[in-house]
């Protein structure tokens, strides 16, 4: 028996009115797998992550997490739309880091990292703080734990956001262009933290990125999206080295030309 995928998109579609953003998406992600999503702007990359984080509803299909439906519940052998309690239970396995950080501005780095562990996981403050201190150390920000987001650089804020997401001990981490809002000289420090996370933790990671070099070196698999479909996917050296699809070639050509 093959192991259950960590995440399965089963024929998932997403529409905004008459605009079909994702068209019958099928995608399995194995436990611990690092998958990069690349593709032109507007191809539906962010939407994939947002649906998995339950920030968007889906119009068709089912998303499965560790063999359990995320968007639905099983009732008398049938799948019915999930209620909030079910969604929260499955959602607990997933964490997300956003392009615009989305730290809580009225809380220090430490407070950002302990809020959810205390209120959602019911951890004791002291335990939550000890764990947050470890995570802030991992992202290289022990010194900044009492700083507010406005006192931190973009790169530092994004690293706090990563620590904050990790504090909930997710099994799946989603990264949506997490370096796109950063000045070029700050990109490296954030990628370094993601690299470390990939090494030190047995995390399943799904990231939308424009950093082709990073995607190539870091991921087990790269998916190229075009117009709401996976146009081509494969191990990075194949997809970057010998793309089979004409659209992939054009895209990679344009991206590498630009940067």
């Amino acid at each position, binding site marked *: 028996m093959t192991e259950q995928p960590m995440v399965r998109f089963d024929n998932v579609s997403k529409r905004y009115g008459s605009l079909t953003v994702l068209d019958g998406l099928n995608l399995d992600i194995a436990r611990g797998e690092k998958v990069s999503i690349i593709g032109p702007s507007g191809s539906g990359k962010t939407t994939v992550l947002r649906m998995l984080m339950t*920030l968007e509803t889906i119009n068709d299909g089912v998303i499965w997490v560790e063999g359990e439906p995320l968007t639905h519940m099983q009732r008398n052998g049938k799948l019915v739309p999930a209620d909030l309690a079910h969604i929260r239970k499955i*959602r607990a396995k997933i964490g997300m880091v956003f392009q615009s950080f989305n730290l809580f501005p009225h809380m220090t780095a430490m407070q950002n990292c302990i809020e959810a562990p205390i209120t959602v996981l019911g951890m004791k403050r002291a335990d939550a703080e000890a764990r947050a201190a470890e995570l802030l150390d991992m992202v290289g920000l022990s010194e900044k734990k009492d700083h507010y987001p406005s006192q931190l650089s973009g790169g530092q804020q994004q690293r706090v956001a990563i620590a904050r997401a990790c504090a909930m001990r997710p099994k799946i981490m989603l990264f949506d262009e997490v370096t796109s809002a950063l000045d070029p000289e700050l990109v490296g420090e954030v990628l370094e933290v993601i690299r470390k996370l990939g090494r030190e933790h047995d995390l399943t990671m799904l990231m939308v990125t424009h950093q082709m070099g990073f995607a190539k070196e870091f991921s087990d698999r790269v998916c190229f999206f075009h117009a709401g479909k996976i146009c081509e996917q494969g191990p990075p050296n194949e997809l970057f080295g010998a793309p089979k699809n004409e659209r992939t070639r054009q895209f990679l050509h344009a991206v590498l030309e630009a940067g």
Partner: protein
Amino acid sequence: MIWDWAFAFEILPVLASAAIVSIEATLIGFALAASLGLVLAVVRIAVPWTGWTISVLVELIRSTPLLIQIFFLYFVFPKFGVVLDAFTAGVLAIGIHYAAYCSEVYRAGFDNIHRGQWEASVALNLSAWTTFRDIIIPQAIPPIVPALGNYLVALFKETPLLSAIAVLELMQTAKIIGSETFRYTEPMTLVGLFFLAMSLVSAALIRSLEGLLNRRTMR
């Protein structure tokens, strides 16, 4: 002589104790308005299907005079078996009336919170209650303190309406003094001065609170 100092000093203690009633009505009324307004604004977002009902309710309350609402609670509610004393009925009416205004202020405050704050809360699996309590409300309140403060002052200046149902607040007391002594100049002037002073003081308090909150959130 138009102004009689001796008379003014004689009625001062009576007016002072009436002033306490006015202030009590203001504070209780505003506490009710601020908390009920917050509840309305939160429920409207947290329980989407209530949106329409709450909008209609708020519009209804804002489009009818406060005096009518006071009369309604005091004279009409007893017909349905709800008997309230004048002070309770009056303060309740004032509180509900201003809750409608406050709920709109909170709503504007919530609308100004960046979408990313809600999304981060979902990603961290916070409950709706925790999201409001720890994330949204602490960020939404500081910018709306001036608007809420304006309603506090406005509410205070409307407490004389309570004299219409004979609550012994400042206005009613002044009217009684006037009708008993046939001197209105001193009581009405003193009442006016009192409202002026209190309004100025609260405006100053709100400004300093505002400054304090700004300094804390600008960090």
